């Protein structure tokens, strides 16, 4: 539904070189300012002229927000680090290959060369009605155009819908939740560190928001603790085309196994609900059991309990059941392999 127009509506491009300077600019311009990281989510909004900020604050010159450094036995990843840099980093590959695997499934090579990890977790939903500027609930309007008998909702939510039925589209988010990552925010009142899963805001809490960021806030970095370093990981994404396409569903798990049973596990899916979902009930149910096919089957059944399909997305229920099954029980070799 993108409408190609000449170029973006004019704005003032401000290019700070430190995070403090960026925060000062954001404080000065408040709701008139837009934070620009890699721009891969932002440019659609600006080109379609659905959003017309007066000021764009470009973070690409803020070097302190970029790079990957050791942190408490784990890693701290600056929000402005590109997805390609994350995927190719030896420390990420060695200990947290789950994250490398997840970001390698995002979009296309050129996009991964430019898109940032901070932008990936902070991106907005992709519901076409909302993105095309329709006055839906999420856009502070009074209706949902996707959840009608003829609404196009094949990609939409099977959990957590509350007026808005859009899903969270990030591929990195479930991996970060599974790794127990923490997000470091810089707000007007100082630094705030929150658990990855608490960063995301669903429509039941506040329908026009997708995460905790208020105008003026910056996501500074993402910390990955050592808890699951080198653990048993599983990531799978299902999409229509192998390049560019957002997840119809993805799953990420991190697991410690000893003595043949699951000692600890974290499991998350995305594109199932308006926020990435951590599946705590499943985690609790599989703890202490062997990571085999029967535990996997049980996990899959439990994961989809309570799912509510829309007109065109019931396929997501067996899809999620099977992805969770594989994430916990492993993938059986095909008989012909």
């Amino acid at each position: 539904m993108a409408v190609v127009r000449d170029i973006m509506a004019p704005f003032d491009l401000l290019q700070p070189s430190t995070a403090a300077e960026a925060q000062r600019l954001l404080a000065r311009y408040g709701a008139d300012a837009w934070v620009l990281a890699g721009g891969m989510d932002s440019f659609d909004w600006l080109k379609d002229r659905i959003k017309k900020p007066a000021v764009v604050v470009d973070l690409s010159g803020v070097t302190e927000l970029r790079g990957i450094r050791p942190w408490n036995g784990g890693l701290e990843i600056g929000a402005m680090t590109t997805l390609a840099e994350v995927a190719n980093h030896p420390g990420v590959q060695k200990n947290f290959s789950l994250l490398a695997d997840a970001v390698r499934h995002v979009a296309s090579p050129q996009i991964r060369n430019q898109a940032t990890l901070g932008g990936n977790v902070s991106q907005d939903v992709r519901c076409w009605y909302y993105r095309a500027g329709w006055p839906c609930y999420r856009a502070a309007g009074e209706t949902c155009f996707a959840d009608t008998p003829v609404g196009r909702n094949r990609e939409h939510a099977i959990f957590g819908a509350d007026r808005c039925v859009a899903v969270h589209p990030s591929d990195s988010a479930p991996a970060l939740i599974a790794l127990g990552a923490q997000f470091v925010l810089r707000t007007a009142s100082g630094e705030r560190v929150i658990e990855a899963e608490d960063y995301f805001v669903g429509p039941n809490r506040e329908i026009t928001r997708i995460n905790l960021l208020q105008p003026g806030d910056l996501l500074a970095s993402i910390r990955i603790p050592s808890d699951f370093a080198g653990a048993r990981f599983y990531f799978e994404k299902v999409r229509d085309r192998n390049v560019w396409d957002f997840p119809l569903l993805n799953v990420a798990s991190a697991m410690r196994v000893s003595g043949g049973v699951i000692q600890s596990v974290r499991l998350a899916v995305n594109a199932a609900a308006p926020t990435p979902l951590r599946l705590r009930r499943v985690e609790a149910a599989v703890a202490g059991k062997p990571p085999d096919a029967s535990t996997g089957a049980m996990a899959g059944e439990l994961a989809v309990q309570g799912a509510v399909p829309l007109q065109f997305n019931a396929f997501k229920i067996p899809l999620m059941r099977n992805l969770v099954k594989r994430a916990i029980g492993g993938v059986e070799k095909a008989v012909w392999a």
Partner: protein
Amino acid sequence: MPEPEAPPPGASAGPALSRRKFILGVIAGGAVVSAASYRLLAPRAASRPALLGGERLLTLRVNGRLRRAEVAQQETLAWTLRYKLGLTGTKLACDRAECGSCTVLLDDVPHYACSVLTHTVRNRAVTTVEGLAAPDGKLHPLQQAVIAEQGFQCAFCMSGFLMAAAGFLKTNPNPTRTEMAHGVSGNLCRCQDYSKILDTLMHGAELMRKGAQA
């Protein structure tokens, strides 16, 4: 159903401005869209600068040369290359990071020029398809391979493919065919000529390796 205006329990007492107001404000600006509104936007808020955007003189490093141009602050690199610098080898098709025809190298790394603001690449080396050949005019091995293999049909996507391949080969000079396919997977060919394109790029990679040995 009205949305609850009260913050959820446990929410931080952040800045007073709600995201709802922010969205309403930004959307109001976008509701009336026409070519005429392009430079005549009424100021919306006190903090809105009197003169929005505007062009600034910029020096860019393109294909090893310093090029000066007046560049609007919201201008994309593809636009600048094509319409300010006359480098029309970079194609503009989808303008949405979904086809690859505008691929250029920034410091040797492939990017979609339709999705880069020109003002953000002041300190970077931009290479377009016009910069692939050697200064003496000798064609780049990838270009030689296009001629040898007759690699493209209509060739609208060609410059994007060549730039994507040139960037990819800097990180992996000796790829398998599958690796090359992954390397240029961010580029589409409307003629669906992928098999011949891959033949071409693999041949070009081989010529590059031979050239490096010579």
